[in-house]
Each structure stands twice: as structure tokens, then as C-alpha cells.
């Protein structure tokens, strides 16, 4: 069985893992802004940073999983913690994938939509930040987990509204004529919005774990 100091070191690793996801969300937000401003070098640098963070998060997740499986944690709690780590990984993966595809496909978004893209990126970042706070509360044994989860739901709703508006612009507006381009842009909007959808899914899971711990 591990010593208390080792438990504290795992706690620090878990905290660091979720910190990496939050940091990636900030670079994701800034990266989208760079992309919309056609500053491709700066966008590439952001993509590079998100990829690095994703790699570090993967390494940390494996290290935590190994430690949790080999020597500690009551199986029920271990399953919850590992489930949380694995599904949270999808958030950072999605951000990286969107940025890679933006880099490869270079879809041409009209400048008029910059504000909406800014809101999309901002709400996504806020959702991930609130998620990190919910996770912190959960791991610290504080009762405020659900308050932060509710904030995630709020930002997810915000993202949904912007997503719907952008899709209407794509198909009903006059800025884009070509159907192939319309479809391409729609897919990108959906994939950006997927980051908050995934965050919301992880929060649903976190909410169940939190209820389980409180009864």
C-alpha cells in the first residue's frame, strides 16, 4: 500500500493533468482567433502548443492509471477516477484534431463571422475552465462540484446558440454560394462546438460520481 506522501504526489499529478486541459483550451481559444485573423504562423505555434499539451496529458494519464491500478484506491473509486481521466482526454483530443484539420483544410470563413467565432471560442474555453473547477471540487471533497457543473451546462448552451446561428448563416446567408464550402464550414462549426458537448458529457459522468459520493 502506498504512503500518504505518494498519495499526495498522485493528487498533484491529477491536478496537473486537468491543468493541462485548461491550458490547452486557452491556446485553442487564442488559436481560433489567430486563424480568423489569418495569422497562420501564430496559429501554427498554438497548434504546436496544444499538441505538446495533449502529449503531456497522455503521459500523465498513463502514469496515474498505472499507479491507481497497481497499489491503491478502493475499486469503486478507482473506476470513477479512471473513467473521468479517460473521458476528459477526449476534450483535449478534440481541440487538437480541430486545429490540425483547420491547418490542413484551411477553410475560408468570412471575416463577418469573426465575432461569432470569438464567442464560440470564448464559451468553449469558459466551459473547460468551469469543468476544471468542478473536477477540483470533486477531488477536494468540496460540495460545490454541481455549482461548477451547472456553469458548464450554461456555457454549452451558449455554444449551442452560436453554433445554430452560424449554421443558419452558412445555409441561409448570402455570403457563401458553393454547397461544398457550406458543408465544409458547417462541419467545422459542429466540430468546434463538439468540444463543449464532450465537456458536458464528462460533466454528466462527474455529476453521477459526485452524487454517489454524497449518499
Amino acid at each position, binding site marked *: *500500500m*502506498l504512503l*500518504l506522501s505518494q*498519495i*499526495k504526489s*498522485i*493528487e498533484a499529478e*491529477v491536478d496537473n493533468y486537468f491543468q493541462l486541459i485548461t491550458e490547452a483550451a486557452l491556446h485553442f481559444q487564442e488559436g481560433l482567433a489567430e486563424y480568423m485573423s489569418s495569422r497562420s504562423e501564430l496559429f501554427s505555434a498554438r497548434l504546436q502548443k496544444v499538441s505538446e499539451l495533449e502529449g503531456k496529458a497522455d503521459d500523465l494519464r498513463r502514469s496515474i492509471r498505472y499507479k491507481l491500478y497497481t497499489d*491503491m*484506491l*478502493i*475499486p*469503486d*473509486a478507482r473506476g470513477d*477516477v479512471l473513467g473521468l481521466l479517460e473521458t476528459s482526454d477526449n476534450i483535449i483530443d478534440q481541440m487538437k484534431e480541430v486545429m490540425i484539420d483547420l491547418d490542413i483544410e484551411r477553410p475560408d470563413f468570412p471575416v463577418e463571422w469573426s465575432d461569432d467565432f470569438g464567442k464560440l471560442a470564448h464559451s468553449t474555453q469558459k466551459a473547460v475552465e468551469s469543468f476544471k473547477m468542478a473536477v477540483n471540487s*470533486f*477531488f*477536494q*471533497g*468540496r*460540495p460545490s462540484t454541481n455549482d461548477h457543473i451547472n456553469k458548464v451546462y450554461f456555457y454549452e448552451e451558449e455554444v449551442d446558440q452560436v453554433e445554430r446561428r452560424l449554421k443558419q448563416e452558412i445555409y441561409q446567408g448570402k455570403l457563401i454560394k458553393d454547397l461544398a464550402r457550406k458543408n465544409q464550414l458547417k462541419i467545422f462549426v459542429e466540430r468546434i462546438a463538439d468540444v463543449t458537448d464532450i465537456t458536458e458529457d464528462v460533466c454528466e459522468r462527474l455529476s453521477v460520481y459526485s452524487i454517489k*459520493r454524497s*449518499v
Partner: protein
Amino acid sequence: MVWEAWFFLSSGLFLGWSLGANDAANVFGTAVGAKMIRFQTAALICSVFLILGAVIAGAGGAHTLGKLGSITKMGAAFTVAFSAAFTVFMMTKLSLPVSTSQAIVGGIIGWNFFAKLPTDLGVVTKIVSTWVACPLLSLMFSYVFYKIITRMLHIMEIPLLRLDYYTRVALILIGAFGSYSLGANNIGNVMGVFIESNPFNSLSVSFITFSSTQVLFLIGGIAIAVGVYTYSKRVMMTVGKSILPLTPVGALVVVFSSALVLFMFSSRGLHNLMLANGLPPIPLVPVSSSQAIVGGVIGVGIAKKALRNMNWSVLINIMIGWVLTPFIAAILAFLLLFIMKNVFKAF
């Protein structure tokens, strides 16, 4: 002579083995069943502390059983212990929860009837009242402890991983205490009937001297430990899920409450402390760890307002077992004593 003594002791050792196989699960069952603690770790801690409890503090409960009926013939003690062991074995086979304490008390009363010895009704009342008090006390303790602990956890906001760590450590510590209490309280069931015909002398190992009764209890304790190692794993894997599913903290509270009850009914120190303060002393009587656990689980169920999740049919089965065990053991002891005396001329 030596071999004859060991042969007659064998029924007590069998009873000890079945106690280890069944009752160790009451202490470590939830933890091992839910894979919170490895079986090997649980078995080692359980065995060591069971033996310590039996040797250090086993005399009180055994003394009360002695007052119920004194069996001076080794062959008769063998038969009484065998009747109790066989009753436990049969009831277990029928999947009816069974108490070794009730089986041995039934067996001793069977002996009293057979030998036409008077049964002290005062002692019987004392023993039976503890059978009722044991699950009730455990219920009360677990209710109160559960309320206190959940409140404390709410206030203290202990981080998740640390809480898990503390729970594991507590499960081991409380498991050790539970094993000690089980050994102290229940060794009387296993070896109590042999005290009057004890074939062993006192034993000195280095600077420690064991009295002849302690040697008897040490052997009984080892038999219980063998039961823990050889057969308790299967029982541990099934226990804890049948009455009410418990959280790790709930399991902790149940084991601690029942261990405390077993300790109360076997602690001479506590007994003397009550006497010294003019309070009614707690009787030193072997009680059933299974009954204590059942009381504890119901206590947590009430505290969690989860009684609707309780498996009441299991509880009814347990009640049937409680009522039937002493009667079956008494009748069986009477019949076997008759056969042993008249057919085998064993005593």
C-alpha cells in the same frame, strides 16, 4: 493418552475451523469481497489478532459458559462440541445463517439434560438476553457512528484520494480490532467445554508463560486461523452483498460497531470498571458476530434511510436460524451423548 486427548479435542478444533471459515467473513468480508484489501493481507491480520484475542482475553466468555454447565469428562466435551459443530455445518449447508455461540449453548444445555444436572436459569437468562442485546447494541452504535462520520466527512472536506487511503487504513485497523474481539469473545465457544477436562499443562516460551487454559485457547485460536486461511475466502466474497449493499464507509461503521459489541461482552477491564463505578456490569458472554453484523447493517440502513433496499427475506432466514440453532444443538447433543455413553462407552 496424548493421541486420545487430541482425538477428543478434534471436535472443538472442527468447531474452531468452521468459526474461522464463517465468522472471519464478518470482519473482513466486505473489504475483501469488494477487493479493497487482498485476501492474503486480511487472512494474516485476522489470524494473528484472533489468536491474540483468544489467548489474552478469552477467559471471560468461557467462564460464563462454564457456569452454564460443567463438562468434566473429555468424551462428553468432545460430543457436545461435535454436536455444536455439526449443527453449524448443517445449517451452513442449508444456507441458514448460524451462530456458533447459540450452537454451543444448546449443546451444553443438552449435556445438562443428559447428565441430569440443573441448568442455572439465571445464567441462561443472562446469555439469552445478550443474544437480544448484541444486535440491538450494534444497531444503535452503527446508527450513531454512521451519523457522526458522515457529518464529519461533510465538514472536513477530505480530498477523494486521501479519503480512500484513510478508509483502507481504517479497514485494516478496525479489522484487526474486530479479529481480536472475535477471538476474545468466541474462543469460549470453541474451547470452553474442554476447560474442565483440559489435558494440557502450562507452557513457558522464553519470558512468556501460558496457563493451561491459555494453551488450550492458543490451539483453538490456531484452528480458527486455519479456518480463515482455508475456507473463509469464499464466504468473504459473498458476504456484505446479501442484506444491504454498503459503501466502504458504511462497511467500516458496521465492522467497528459489531467489533465494539463483541469487545464489550468479553472485556474483563470494562466489566470491572462498571462494577467499580457502581454500574451494572456487562456480562462476559460469547455472542454471535453474525448477529452483531446484522444489527450493524440495519443501523446503517436506518441512518441512510435505505430500509426499502434491505433484503428482508434474508433477515427472516437469519431469525429462523437464531431460533432453531440452540434447539437443534441441544437435541443433537442429547442424542449423541446417549450413543457415545451407551454404545461406545466413551465416558
